């Protein structure tokens, strides 16, 4: 029997019902639907009069809208190289304490409007992720601190400085303790500034606190290599990747970098005939796990046991005698054999924040000879430096009153510290509390002074992401509010009132310029600032050789572990909200989770088997221990006894638009042996009455049971490159038309998506929204299937619902050359251009939605409301993202029309970018180069899965992709002749 694809469990049940022709057990209505029905009353004479009055009034208003006088205000003195109306790009760095990305910031007429990847960076290599793309909206956030405050009252910087310095002087006399609590600092200049502060205040301390901690890795490496560090992993060199609960494509350590490396090794284009193999062990279904060639379900508590067994098998294969360990829940013999065949070409990683687990991982990688090949101990990844126990110690010290002053820099422990209540009550014993946040947050409500920091796009900074891999951040806009760089504040309080720009320059001149080989520092500085990056090529020294001693102890500890049989809770971070730093970013909140397709909430994912056993169903509220109530989501592929809940939700008063989104799961985290554990071994769940509606984009736009994602295995592909895509030949043979196929003179734009590279990380979705002013519609509208994303990532499950495989497919407008939408538009608002683009003229659209109805791909979006304030009628507005406020609107791209209510919109192939690059070529009197036009989605993609170009040009990348035997078109049997092609997915598995 053919394996069946389904988009959700409902689909599967529905299909089963259809097959057995059983009547539907009852139409499940949404709460909102019912509400509407109860409201509907007949239209009356009054309504008519209202309508009449409104029409007259609106006509009168519209007619009296004279053209306003527009002012044209030139520069007084034009800055060099700034051309009004043209965008400039500035290299910068995104680091929010968790995610790092080297970026280019697009600035139009003085305001940053888009973030793109910096391809010069050896770390992120031009890739971005959803959180980086969305971070630009944080600049234009109404919730930002607008000036320094003292206990909530506005004060001036001078006043704040005077009072703080007065206090610090007193503390200094007493030799009292002041603590700077920050997230991981990767900026060498900031570290220098903190050092200066510490030197000026003897007895004070700097503590780094990571929300998503890697203390386990740091400590394990301290034991095996003598230094606490995170090594540089190189997934591109690994032919066999084994992941244990490490979401390295989504949120683990440096996901953009890892996605670049991972995808590089998964491509089967340009004559490449081999690809990496990825085996994943996890409890919940993560982005990374869903991309694996083979995925095994284990409970978080079993991870150590599996690793120990794997280690045991490997040393047995090495000829040593094995240890006696209770047997693994899964058979690892085969895996061990496979791994030992890939010595020096494999990589084992674990996401557990547990020293023993990481010690075992180290031991396995050492056995496999991966150190020096796929893991570099002489190059450290600096993104996680915080030790969990330091933070715990700080809270204890605060409780006992040892800490007199506390400076909070870019941390929010009142929200994300597991024992937040304890922290907040301990804060009361601190005499001076200063917070230096960007955004209004939970912790700043409990401090004396709020000394707001610049947004990262407003200030200078630098970063050392890996050993001697530096990057710079520069201001792209004058500070919008009365903020000051946190470093400047610290330096000022340390008695060195210098501006941070001068300070960084000085630091670079003193510390980095020497080895660069340039003659003048100004040249060096300007070049590095232009590129955004600098690598001095130095390596860490003093790393000891591998020391196996600690592993024995870890193994001994594993021996005593007995795999429990109770329910377990796994806490994870998802790709949209992450740690919750950007939880009030509506772009991220509306981004559907790549696995569950839920947005605007977190939930408890349970396995179908457990759901059946406990009679749970979707949206049923449950309590986990004392946590909740939280809605249930039945997740195919979830481990039987594991329940997963996402962190980062439940931030208070962050308002998009009103109040809290989801539940805060941070208090569930428990520490074992001084590291925060992201799982709870024993939980009980309790059903609570009632249901909570989740907004899912999943069951919308379902393309029922058709051959949409075509896939094959590597073995079959090597035998026949067209395997999995055989049906294409049959379809092609049937492609006959009475009409001549349209020829495109000049250009014929096309896009190809390599399904093998696409990981489903959603970076393209946010990038598209930013570039094209795509509105956020809010949870209520998403429930009504009115989300506006121009590009969506469909995902289909395949096979056994308890352990399915998962495939994904990004779908945007296919720009059909025989487009069904164009034929049905009564006003010719959507037509075909002579460059093969399916055009949409918003001003012509009257909103019949015939096109939407006739589109087989369901990629057209209708503006049910005015979400961005484009309409002249105020009653049409619905504003879940505050996009009608002046501040927020600064982020809009002036090159793309802001759509009003009642019009259809869809992917335009970023026509504004095409037009821009065509003009550049014309002005330079040359033909357009291949790869010059880069749509927002392609630019953002960290996996380089999207290729865009001119199909008329036979030498172009896109033409080569289209000629590939793996290429096919979505629903090509309909003869819509799409301009978007897909390359079949090839899985490297032996079945």
């Amino acid at each position: 029997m053919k394996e069946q694809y389904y988009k959700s469990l409902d689909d599967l049940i529905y299909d089963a019902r259809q097959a057995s022709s059983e009547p539907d057990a009852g139409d499940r209505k949404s709460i909102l639907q019912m509400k509407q029905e109860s409201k509907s009353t007949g239209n009356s004479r009054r309504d008519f009069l209202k309508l009449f009055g409104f029409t007259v009034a609106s006509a009168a208003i519209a007619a009296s809208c004279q053209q306003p006088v527009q002012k044209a205000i030139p520069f007084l003195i034009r800055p060099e190289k700034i051309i009004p109306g043209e965008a400039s790009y500035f290299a910068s760095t995104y680091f929010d304490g968790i995610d790092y990305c080297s970026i280019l910031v697009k600035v139009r007429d003085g305001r940053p409007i888009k973030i793109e990847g910096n391809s010069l960076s050896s770390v992120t290599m031009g890739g971005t992720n959803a959180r980086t793309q969305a971070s630009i909206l944080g600049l234009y956030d109404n919730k930002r601190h607008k000036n320094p405050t003292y206990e909530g009252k506005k004060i001036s910087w001078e006043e704040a400085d005077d009072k703080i310095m007065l206090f610090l002087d007193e503390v200094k006399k007493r030799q009292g303790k002041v603590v700077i609590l920050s997230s991981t600092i990767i900026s060498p200049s900031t570290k220098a500034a903190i050092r200066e502060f510490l030197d000026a205040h003897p007895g004070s301390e700097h503590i780094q606190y990571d929300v998503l901690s890697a203390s386990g890795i740091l400590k394990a490496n301290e034991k095996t290599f003598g230094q606490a560090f995170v090594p540089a992993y190189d997934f591109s060199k690994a032919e066999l990747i084994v992941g244990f609960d490490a979401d390295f494509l989504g949120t683990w350590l440096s996901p953009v970098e890892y996605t670049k490396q991972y995808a590089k090794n998964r491509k089967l284009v340009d004559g490449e005939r081999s690809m990496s193999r990825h085996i994943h062990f996890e409890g919940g279904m993560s982005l990374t796990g869903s991309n694996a060639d083979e995925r095994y379900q284990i409970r978080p508590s079993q991870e150590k046991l599996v690793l120990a067994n794997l280690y045991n098998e490997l040393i047995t294969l090495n000829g040593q005698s094995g240890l006696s360990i209770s047997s693994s829940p899964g058979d690892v013999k085969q895996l061990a054999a496979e791994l030992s065949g890939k010595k020096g070409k494999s990589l084992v990683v674990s996401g557990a924040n547990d020293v023993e687990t990481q010690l075992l991982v180290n031991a396995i990688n050492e056995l496999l000879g991966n150190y020096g090949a796929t893991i570099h101990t002489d190059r450290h990844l600096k993104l996680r430096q915080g030790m969990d126990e330091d933070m715990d110690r700080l809270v204890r010290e605060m409780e006992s009153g040892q800490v007199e002053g506390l400076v909070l820099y870019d941390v929010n422990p009142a929200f994300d510290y597991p024992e937040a209540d304890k922290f907040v009550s301990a804060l009361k014993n601190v005499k001076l509390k200063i917070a230096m946040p960007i955004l209004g947050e939970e912790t700043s409500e409990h401090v004396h002074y709020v000394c707001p920091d610049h947004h990262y796009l407003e200030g200078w900074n630098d970063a050392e992401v890996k050993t001697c891999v530096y990057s710079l951040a520069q201001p792209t806009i004058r500070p919008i509010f009365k903020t000051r760089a946190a470093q400047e504040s610290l330096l000022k309080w340390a008695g060195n009132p210098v501006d941070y720009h001068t300070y960084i320059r000085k630091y670079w001149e003193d510390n980095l310029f020497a080895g660069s080989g340039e003659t003048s520092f100004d040249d060096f500085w300007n070049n590095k600032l232009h590129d955004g990056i600098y690598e001095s090529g130095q390596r860490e020294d003093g790393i000891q050789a591998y020391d196996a001693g600690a592993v024995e102890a870890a193994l001994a500890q594993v021996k005593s572990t007995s795999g429990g049989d109770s329910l377990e809770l796994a806490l994870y971070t998802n790709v949209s909200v992450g740690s919750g730093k950007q939880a009030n970013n509506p772009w991220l909140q509306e981004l559907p989770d790549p696995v569950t397709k839920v947005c605007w909430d977190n939930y408890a994912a349970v396995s179908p088997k457990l759901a059946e056993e406990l009679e749970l169903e979707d949206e049923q509220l449950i309590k986990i221990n004392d946590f909740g109530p939280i809605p249930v989501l039945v997740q195919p592929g979830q481990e039987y006894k594991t329940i997963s809940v996402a962190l980062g939700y439940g931030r208070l008063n962050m308002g998009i638009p009103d109040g809290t989104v989801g539940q805060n799961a941070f208090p569930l985290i428990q520490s074992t042996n001084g590291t925060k554990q992201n799982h709870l071994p024993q939980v009980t769940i309790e059903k609570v009455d009632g249901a909570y509606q989740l907004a899912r984009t999943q069951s919308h736009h379902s393309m029922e049971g058709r051959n949409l994602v075509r896939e094959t295995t590597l073995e079959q592909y090597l035998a026949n490159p067209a395997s999995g895509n055989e049906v294409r030949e049959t379809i092609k043979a049937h492609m006959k038309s009475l009409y001549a196929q349209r020829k495109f003179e000049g250009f014929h734009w096309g896009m190809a998506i390599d399904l093998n590279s696409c990981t489903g990380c959603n970076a393209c979705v946010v990038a598209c929204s930013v570039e094209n002013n795509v509105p956020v519609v809010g949870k209520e509208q998403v429930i009504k299937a009115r989300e506006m994303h121009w590009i969506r990532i469909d995902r289909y499950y395949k096979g056994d619902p308890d352990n399915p495989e998962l495939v994904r497919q990004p779908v945007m407008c296919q720009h059909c050359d025989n487009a069904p939408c164009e034929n049905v538009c009564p006003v010719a608002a959507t037509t075909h251009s002579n460059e093969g683009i399916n055009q949409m003229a918003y001003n012509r659209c009257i909103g019949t939605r015939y096109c939407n109805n006739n589109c087989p791909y369901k990629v057209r979006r209708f503006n049910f409301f005015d979400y961005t304030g484009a309409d002249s009628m105020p009653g049409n507005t619905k504003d879940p993202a505050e996009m009608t406020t002046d501040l927020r609107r600064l982020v809009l791209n002036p090159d793309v029309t802001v759509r009003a209510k009642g019009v259809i919109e869809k992917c335009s192939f970023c026509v504004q970018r095409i037009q821009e690059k065509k003009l550049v070529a014309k002005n330079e009197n040359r033909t357009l180069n291949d790869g010059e036009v880069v749509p927002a989605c392609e630019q953002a993609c960290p996996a380089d899965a999207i290729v865009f170009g001119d199909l008329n040009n036979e030498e172009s990348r896109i033409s080569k992709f289209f000629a590939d035997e793996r290429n096919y078109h979505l629903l090509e049997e309909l003869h819509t002749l799409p301009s978007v092609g897909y390359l079949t997915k090839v899985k490297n598995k032996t079945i």
Partner: protein
Amino acid sequence: MKLKSPVLRKSGFSPKVFLLTLSMSIFVFSATAFAGTQTQQSEQDSANSAAVEQSSPTDTATIQSDSVSANSVNETETETQADTTDQAAKEDTVFNDAASAKSEPAGEERFSHYRNDIKRGERFFRGLLPQNNKQESCASCHNILPSDTLNWNPSALDIANKYIEKDFAEFKAVVMEPSGGKMAEVHKDYSFADADLKTVKAYLDDLSMRGPAPVKPTIDRLLLFLFLGLIITWALLEMIFFRKIKYKAIPLIIFLGVFSYQVKMIYEEAVRLGRSQGYEPEQPIKFSHKVHAGQNQIDCKYCHFTVEQSKSAGIPPTDLCLNCHSLVREGTRSGKFEIAKVIEATDNNIPVEWVRIHNLPDHVFFSHAQHVNAGKLDCIECHGEVAEMDVVRQVEDLSMGWCLDCHRTKEVQFVDNNFYESYEVLHQQIKKGEIDKVTVDMIGGTECMKCHY
């Protein structure tokens, strides 16, 4: 779920009624549009006055003076009569009053005297006081109301705004002993009493605080429209009820004639809605393109230098003006007054707020670089003979039809620009002689997404 249509029918809401609503709203719409024919000009004025209101803290005092001394109006009237009879005495009183006002700046009395000064100053400025007859009045050179022709001399408001911050001595010095050039020539034999000048200063200060008088909307077209409506009503009543005219065709013909004229008016106004052909607003500086581009032959691209690189041709940054005007400090006709504005803008760090003339809707993406650099169009083709204009006027209507007409006939730089090598078929056709030129529409220049995206 119930369908909506039966509900609608029950309530008597039919498509007919809706059409009626629609047609009525069109009537109201167009009628109000007529009222708005005095488009941008008046708005600009109100914007100006609003700005003045905001900027001047003293204007609250002016408003107070209006309300406090209700009898001051009567007083001024009697005093203006007295003006003609007793000048000398008046001069003294004015002088003294002004002096006392300085030392004793409070009370109703002061306001009423102040108002008298203003009134007298205005009369003086307009040349309505008899002793001015031997000289030309100020108003004969300096406009009080905005005019449709270019007057090189600064208007009363301009002068008022400039001297509101300055004291009387400075004002007097400028009027009586101008430092050179054209003004010295015109103001040559001026002999005014200080008292008179003080009233003028008072008037000008007041003018600066008040801002320009709002222009009353012209409602000729609306009145005509309503009048025609009356005729229609009469004609209809005549045809149906009165039936006094023997020949029934007459009211019918009148009805049809008048009604079709009304339709024509609506059509014209509807087409004009949102367009501003002929828009010729007054600019904050009397900058003449005729002088710069015409007489002095300065190339357009010298000032609008981003025209070949950017979407926007660019208004020149103020420091670019100073390239010449750091030396050229005086114009032959405008004197120093207008050029001084540029220098002041640079000195005070306040950019000049020009009024934008050519303005496309937000959903149109037009690029100057595309047309001027790639398309090799001359500025004149869209902007008209700017080098002949003292005040720039929008010559074309900038409608989509106008754009498309050009795109259908204009040739692209097909052979000269290597970009077009991608269009192989057209090149072959040219070689074979099948076509002799490639117009913009042949390479997709009339498609929606060339300009709307």
